[in-house]
Structures are given as C-alpha cells and as structure tokens.
C-alpha cells in the first residue's frame, strides 16, 4: 500500500475523536468505587487473618513453653524420687559410723563400769587390807580414790567420745559435695532403664502388630495364579 494513502488514513484515524455520553465517567467511577470497597473488605479479612495467626502463634508458644516448664518441673520429681534413696545411702554411712561409734561408747561405758567395779573391788580390798589405819582417813582416801577413779576414766574417756564427734564433723562437711555427685543417674541405672524399655517394646511387638492389627508374614503371595513371593525361598 502506498505510504501516502496509509499516512492519510492514519492521520485521519489519529485525529478522530468521539464525544462520549455524559454518564460514561460515572459508570467508570462506580466500578472503581465498587472495586475499592471490595479491596477494603479483603484488607479487613487479611487483618483478621493476621490477628488470628498472631493469636495462634501466642497460644502455641504458650503451650510449648508450658510443656517445657512442665518437663522441667517433672525432672526434679524424678530426682526427688531417687534422692531419698540416695539420701538413705548417705544416711546409711553415718548410721554405720554411728553404729561403729556406739560400740566404742558402749565399750567405754563398759570400761567405765569395769573400772568402777574394779575400783570398788580395790576399795573393798583396801578396806579389808588396811583396817588398821584410821577409818576416817581411809574412807576419805577411798572416797578420794573412788572419786578420782570415777572421774579419771571419764576424763580418759571424754576425749575418746569427743574424737568421733570431731571425726563426724568433716563427714558432715563432705556431705553437700557428695549430694551434688549423686544427683546424676548412674550408668547402670540408665542401662537398666533402657533394658526395661527394650523388653517392654519387644513384648508389645510380640503381643500385637502395629495399631493392634496382627500382621504376619504370609507364606505365599499369589497374584493371578503366579507366586510373587514365597517363604520357602
């Protein structure tokens, strides 16, 4: 096509203009307003979703935190249940020590008693042996000797009695350190727990299949008469 005609056509076309009807803009405007209202509604919905999402987040976070806190509070319970045993073990040591001490004390008292008896015998023998001497002096001496005898063993015993007490004190001081150590579960206990779990699981598996359904290996699987799987192989 000749450029002159094309240009003329084009020029005329580009200069063409129609006057639209008056209400045309109103039609466009109403459409725009409708779409904006829809947009607002959509925006509101999105906001609600946001709030819902935040709410869910907070709730789930709270649950998670609560769960962990519970776990933490449960752990001490576990420790507590075991602690008494450990404490008993700890206590058993002092009890043993005390038991060890008690005989000593008893021995001491026995010794004292023996001393007392011996003294009394001595006194009696003194009394019998030295009758010539003035009874007063003798009795005084005897009394003194008795007193001395009675007191002496006590004096001799008292350090013995106190020594174990002093020995007990360092034991008491060592106790807190021992406590910290005993907080941990021993390897044997852990292994034992694992063994118990294992045996429990095995028992469960043996008792029933998964989800309570008995799934046993079939001896043979046939599909359309063809053996797909057989146990003999």
């Amino acid at each position, binding site marked *: 096509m000749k450029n002159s005609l094309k240009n003329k056509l*084009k020029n005329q*076309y580009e200069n063409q203009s129609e006057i*639209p009807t008056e209400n045309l803009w109103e039609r466009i405007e109403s459409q725009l307003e409708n779409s904006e209202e829809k947009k607002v509604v959509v925006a509101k919905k999105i906001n609600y979703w946001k709030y819902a999402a935040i709410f869910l987040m907070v709730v789930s976070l709270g649950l998670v935190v609560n769960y962990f806190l519970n776990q933490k509070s449960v752990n001490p319970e576990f420790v507590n249940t075991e602690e008494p045993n450990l404490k008993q073990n700890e206590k058993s040591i002092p009890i043993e020590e005390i038991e060890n001490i008690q005989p000593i004390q008893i021995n001491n008292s026995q010794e004292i008693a023996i001393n007392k008896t011996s003294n009394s015998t001595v006194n009696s023998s003194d009394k019998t042996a030295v009758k010539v001497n003035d009874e007063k002096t003798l009795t005084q001496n005897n009394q003194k000797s008795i007193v001395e005898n009675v007191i002496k063993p006590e004096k001799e015993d008292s350090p013995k009695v106190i020594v174990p007490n002093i020995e007990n004190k360092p034991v008491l001081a060592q106790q807190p350190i021992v406590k910290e150590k005993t907080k941990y579960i021993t390897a044997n206990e852990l292994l034992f727990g694992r063994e118990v779990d294992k045996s429990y699981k095995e028992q469960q598996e043996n008792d029933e299949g998964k989800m309570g359904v008995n799934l046993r290996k079939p001896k043979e699987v046939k599909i359309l008469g063809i053996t797909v799987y057989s146990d003999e192989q």
Partner: protein
Amino acid sequence: MQNDFQHIFNRAIKQDRLAQKTIYEMFSGKMLAVAKSYVNNFDDAEDILVTAFFKAFTKIEDCRDSKSFPFWLRKIVVNDSINFIRKSKNLLYVEGEIEHIGDEISDEEMENFPDFDLEKVLSQMPLGYKLVFNLYVFEDKKHQEIAEILNISEGTSKSQLNKAKKWLVEFFRTQENEKFVKK
C-alpha cells in the same frame, strides 16, 4: 505539559479520583473513536471504554511511566475491542492462501484516491478484514503479530489485508461514482 501529566499520572497511581477523571477526559474521545473503529457501534464502544478505563486505573502500577501510558491505554482498548468482537460475533477466517500476484492492487490504483470520510470507510468495511486492516494500518502491527493476536495464520492475515485493500479501491470507485451521479 509533560510534567503536568507526570504529576497527574503519579496521583492516579495513588488512586486519586480527580486525577483519574482528568486522564479520562484527556483520552476518552480518542479511545472511544478507536473502540468504535473496531466494533462499529457507539454503545458497544462505550462499554468497551468503561472496562478498559477500569482496567487501566486498577492496574496502573503495571504501566512503566507516564510517557508510555497513552500507548498502554490504547493497547488495552484495542485488546478489549478484539475480545468483544470475538465474544459477540463469531468470526471465522477461512484459511486463505495468499492471492495471486496479479490480484495485488497496484500502487497507481492506490495513489489515485479521492478525499474520503474515514468514519464511513470504517463503518462500511466488512468486519472480516477490518480487524486485520485496523491492526496493520493504524496499530502498525506486522502480519506475524496480527496472526498471533487474532489466532490466525500469517497467510490468512496477508490475504485478509489484500481483501481489505481491494475493498477500499472498490469503495473509492463507488464513492467517485456517487459523486458523479450527484453532480
């Protein structure tokens, strides 16, 4: 002027109703003529214009800048017009081979064209070739592009344009004859 339009364009992006109305007043006349050149009907053209301006204002962010806005808007109008024709009128293009070279309109024939009323030309041209003719002449589309837009083969596009040319020559002839008769 350009700065003014830039300012209006920027306000229209922010969905300023006044700026939108200003843009509408600037382009509505021209766009209505473009739409009418395709659909041949004033009311249909106005309907197309409403949807086209609505699209343009709601998706104005897609337009790169204020300079390209007029072309962008025109593209929307043309596309909407073609879609309208597709929906309302069942257009069927016969897969036409390119006509014989002998049938090509000679340049001399096209050179001796009388004064014409474009509106009359566009309103009387059959819809079949008018789409190709409009796209080729007024939208400066190549046959390949027209083929893609109208979902036809390139050969069909060429043959349709040739038919349009033939029709135009015939139209001029009859116009001359009418003038002669009137005189």
